């Protein structure tokens, strides 16, 4: 690798949106909406401009940039600096984050204009950009961790933006806490790195790691680090078993769902794993776990997506599923394919959410697709752009999603046909639920209340949203198209969803990223090109299969939701319990509540607080005689929930295996 060259201006990119956040945060309350928008757009736009400027000066042959601002802290010989780093990988992330981010800032001006907390929203959005840019530009794991936790904070604030709504506040808290569980793993991984490498600097860690042998025989330190990093990534990128926060996060305003919970933040885990490719490459067991978790998540979330009726929830589970693809890619060593899909996904999923926002806007805050329909004639631009995004995510050539998904499936096939098969099944389901969404929303006749005023017909959620929410103020009788400040970003993203995949043709994207992953995939690449040459027929055959399933999904959706719209209900009834389970997301939230939350609260209350603290210790202090009684009382009240679910046992077994592997490496 060419040695990095100094670029003393790198830190300015993240600082720009921070300045915007500070100005709007401190002075926005009394400022006019125009002033607030100007500040928010100028600073996020400037970050995008700076990113473009750097991209122009940076070609794939040149060396990575770095820049060190100052010492953050030092203890003994261990030190951490505020340092930034830009290579091909962070450049892709930088462009995605600032580009898509800027578009969503523009969209938000239209979407959030009438909200009382407009200044707050824009300040949080800028704050998010600051942390996300810190995350992708970090030169060491701890600066990355600043961004990592910071985006979590921004996400907490934005999910709970309409904080008077209990469900929004609860969703924000849930996101933060579940992410913290992931961060726990991340932190332990960092401690292992400190112990073995004495540093958290990417360059220093990876240069030492490359001298380590691949842990093929058993599990060792690198496997443990890899698995622990995966725990962190699973939290941030909503993978099994920590995905549960993401669907709830849809309580946030829709631009937030687009920016944070689709295009950028949730991909941070994928980025982190790709960034750590040197470690994963030498820990095949960890790679396998990544691939398995990714594959299972892809399929599992997709099946839930089939039965959701809330337009944003469909997209949320779809995001979880697509993130699963990206992990699958990383797990089979196809890091650049994972990042490629990350990029195209940012385009089409960002677009899908923004378009969904436009729909929700157009029908007066309604999110239930059963009350939509026929919107095609009212909202032609939204329909067209969302249609493009749907074609892209379904994997219809030559749109963006086709290229990146196909790349992943091909690489997965080269590792094991099982990954490929599950990936293809997921692709079928994806295509189905996306076209189902399109037909339910835009096809047929409008099923909403003629006057969207009439709150009786709205869900409680939509009603609560209306209280706070901007655009419902102008009480529309009929669905209507959104203003151009919102449609503009849709069009730009639609163009990117159309042509964004072309950069991958002929392995160009992979070659661009090759310097980043050369230490890892270098040897493999040569070996693979040989194999690829030999099996072009196989590749085209597989491509044919994945394109066919995309059309098959479309056809099924067309039959069920356009030709015979009465059929789905009949099928649902005949499926009975299975359908119920899917609608209720396999009762995972309920399972977690019974397994973890309730025992924790009850145990802490009866055993620890009333039992030990008051029953034993204080009793000894106050009156030792009654102590014995209270202890037995507390013991009697100990209750343990019965674990009835097989899935629970399997998951527990899997967790135990992973924990054992981590422990072997940590020891």
């Amino acid at each position: 690798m060419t040695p990095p060259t100094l670029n003393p201006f790198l830190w300015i990119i993240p600082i720009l949106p921070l300045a915007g956040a500070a100005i709007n945060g401190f002075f926005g309350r009394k400022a006019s909406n125009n002033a607030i928008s100007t500040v928010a757009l100028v600073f996020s736009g400037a970050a995008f401009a700076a990113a473009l400027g750097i991209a122009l000066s940076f070609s794939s042959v040149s060396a990575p940039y770095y820049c060190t601002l100052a010492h953050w802290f030092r203890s003994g010989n261990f030190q951490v600096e505020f340092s930034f780093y830009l290579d091909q990988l962070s450049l892709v992330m930088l462009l995605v984050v600032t580009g898509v981010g800027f578009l969503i800032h523009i969209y938000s001006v239209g979407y959030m204009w009438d909200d009382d907390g407009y200044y707050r929203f824009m300040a949080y959005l800028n704050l998010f950009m600051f942390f996300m840019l810190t995350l992708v530009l970090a030169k060491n794991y701890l600066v990355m961790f600043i961004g990592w936790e910071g985006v979590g904070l921004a996400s907490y604030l934005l999910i709970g933006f309409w904080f008077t709504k209990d469900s929004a506040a609860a969703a924000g808290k849930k996101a933060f806490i579940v992410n913290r569980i992931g961060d726990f793993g991340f932190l332990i991984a960092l401690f292992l790195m400190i112990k073995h490498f004495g540093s958290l600097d990417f360059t220093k860690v990876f240069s030492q790691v490359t001298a380590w042998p691949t842990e093929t025989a058993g599990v060792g330190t690198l496997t443990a680090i890899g698995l622990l990093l995966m725990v962190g990534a699973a939290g941030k990128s909503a993978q099994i078993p920590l995905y549960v926060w993401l669907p709830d996060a849809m309580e946030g305003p829709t631009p937030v769902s687009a920016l944070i919970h689709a295009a950028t933040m949730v991909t941070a885990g994928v980025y982190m794993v790709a960034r750590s490719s040197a470690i994963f490459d030498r820990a095949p067991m960890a790679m396998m776990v990544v691939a398995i978790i990714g594959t299972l998540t892809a399929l599992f979330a997709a099946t839930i997506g089939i039965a959701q009726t809330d337009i944003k929830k469909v997209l949320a589970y779809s995001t979880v599923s697509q993130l699963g693809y990206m992990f699958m890619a990383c797990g089979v060593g196809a890091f650049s394919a994972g990042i490629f899909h990350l990029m195209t996904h940012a385009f089409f999923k960002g677009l899908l959410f923004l378009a969904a926002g436009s729909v929700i806007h157009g029908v007066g805050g309604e999110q239930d697709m059963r009350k939509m329909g026929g919107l095609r004639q009212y909202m032609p631009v939204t329909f067209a752009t969302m249609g493009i995004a749907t074609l892209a995510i379904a994997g219809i050539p030559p749109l963006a999603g086709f290229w990146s998904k196909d790349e992943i499936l091909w690489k997965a096939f080269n590792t094991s046909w099982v990954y490929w098969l599950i990936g293809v099944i997921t692709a079928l389901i994806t295509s189905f639920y996306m076209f189902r969404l399109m037909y339910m929303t835009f096809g047929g006749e409008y099923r909403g209340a003629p006057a969207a005023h009439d709150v009786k017909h709205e869900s409680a959620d939509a009603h609560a949203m209306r209280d706070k929410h901007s655009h419902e103020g102008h009480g529309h009788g009929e669905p209507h198209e959104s203003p151009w400040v919102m449609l503009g970003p849709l069009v730009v993203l639609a163009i990117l969803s159309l042509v964004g995949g072309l950069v991958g043709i002929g392995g160009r994207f992979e070659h661009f990223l090759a310097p980043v992953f050369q230490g890892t995939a270098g040897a493999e690449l040569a070996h693979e090109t040989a194999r690829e040459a030999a099996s072009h027929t196989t590749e085209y055959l597989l491509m044919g299969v994945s394109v066919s399933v995309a059309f098959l999904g479309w056809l099924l959706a067309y039959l069920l939701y356009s030709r015979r719209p009465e059929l789905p209900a009949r099928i649902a009834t005949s499926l009975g319990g299975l359908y119920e389970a899917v609608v209720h997301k396999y009762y995972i939230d309920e399972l977690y509540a019974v397994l973890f939350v309730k025992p924790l609260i009850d145990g802490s209350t009866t055993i620890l607080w009333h039992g030990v603290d008051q029953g034993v210790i204080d009793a000894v202090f106050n009156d030792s005689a009654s102590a014995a009684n209270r202890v037995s009382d507390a013991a009697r009240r100990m209750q343990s929930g019965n674990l009835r679910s097989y899935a629970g046992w399997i998951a527990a077994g899997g967790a135990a295996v992973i924990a054992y592997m981590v422990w072997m490496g940590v020891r």
Partner: protein
Amino acid sequence: MGPMNMDSFNPIILSLVTFIPAVGGLLILLIPRRDRDIKLFALVVSILAFVASLHLPVHLHRDHNLFKFEINKVWITNPNIHYHMGIDGISVWLVVLTTFLTPLCVLISWTSIHTRVKEFFILLLIMESALIGVFTSLDLFLFYFFWESTLIPMALLIGIYGHGRKVYAAVKYFLFTMIGSMFMLAAILWLYAKTGTFDFVDIQNAIHSGNVPGFEHASLWLFLGFFIAFAVKVPLFPVHTWLPDAHVEAPTAGSVLLAGVLLKMGTYGLLRFNVGLFPDQARRNASWIIVLALIGIIYGALVALVQPNMKKLIAYSSISHLGFVVLGIFSFTTAGLNGAVFVMLAHGVATGGLFMLAGILYERRHTYEITEFGGLATPMPRYATFFLVTVLASVGLPLLNGFIGEFLVLSGAFQARPIYGILAATGVIWSACYLLWMYQRVFYGQVKLAVNNTLPDLTLREKVALSPIAIAALVMGVAPMVWLSAIDPAVQAVLAPVTQMASKVVGQ
């Protein structure tokens, strides 16, 4: 004034900083009973002490030599007691923490104390002097004098100005800590009997060079004598139950000093005396002490989670945070000790801030019950913002002060033994659980009780009192080297004999 002139303060600066508050407190006796004058005077005195204390870190040499700004004069010849004071890179920050928090305590008590205003501020300032004295004394008798001097003002602050079962709480506090201190006194007297001096440095040298007759057999008991006194103060499980009661009933300023500074007397004592005098025993006993610390971290957090009372919740969270400090100290790693000292300071700022915030709410509603609130972010947006910043500092968000200390402690503990680091690291999950859940119940959702609709947002005075907390939380998180550059060499000086001892053991 040039630096030369400022350096001429060095021999007397510690005495100045230590006694400015107490002298100011006594001068209040001379002021006629006009509440406003008394408060203003107390504020001026406490700010003066803070400004004077800033001389210490500014002029402190950041090297490995032990004590700076020393003053050593004979106080009483028989028994041989010296007025010996001095600080290092650890105690200097505890002094500054004390002088930093006291003006904020004065401000936060401005309108909440109605009766016996004069006595309140006298007690507060005397309390401040006693706390500073604990951190500056290098003579064990002098140390014990200041140590016990903190007891009575705090018991009175709770017993007179508290609420609810205030007498019960005050007595409980008094008895727990008093009984603990007796063991320390016995240990101090034993050391005096064998060495003929109370001087910390002399005793340390005597022990390290093996010149204390009978020390071999007594060292475990001496170690435990000090340990019990400090463990009660920290407080470590299972002698922690005085703390939640004391906090709930204490007036706000009392809670701020209690959590902010008084608990650190315990951890400071462990570091200075248990580790400093008995490095061998400290190492031998580290494992069970760490177990207690780990219990404290997890147990404190879980009990905090289910507290219906905001102040009790913060009190139990302190037990959890102080567990990190003890864990860091007894990990005997540079990172662990640096982190332990940093957590002491960060916790002082953040938890001091949380108690101030709880007090602001109490002044408006006269309750700490979480269920009495809900939706407060609507009537009190600025209050909600300050509260959130303090909560985030407390949960250890990077770039705020809680993170640095916690990270260093955990990494040190992990180096000592991975399982220590792993168990303690669950604390990052727990703290998010109990604090964010409380925050949600207090601030989010609709306002449920009509009385909360009209709660006034922060006054100017309250904003002035809270801003230093928020600023300190941010500055300590972004530029921790300001503190660590002094802490790191001091910690290494403390650690040197322990690691020497360890290598001796290994060498045998």
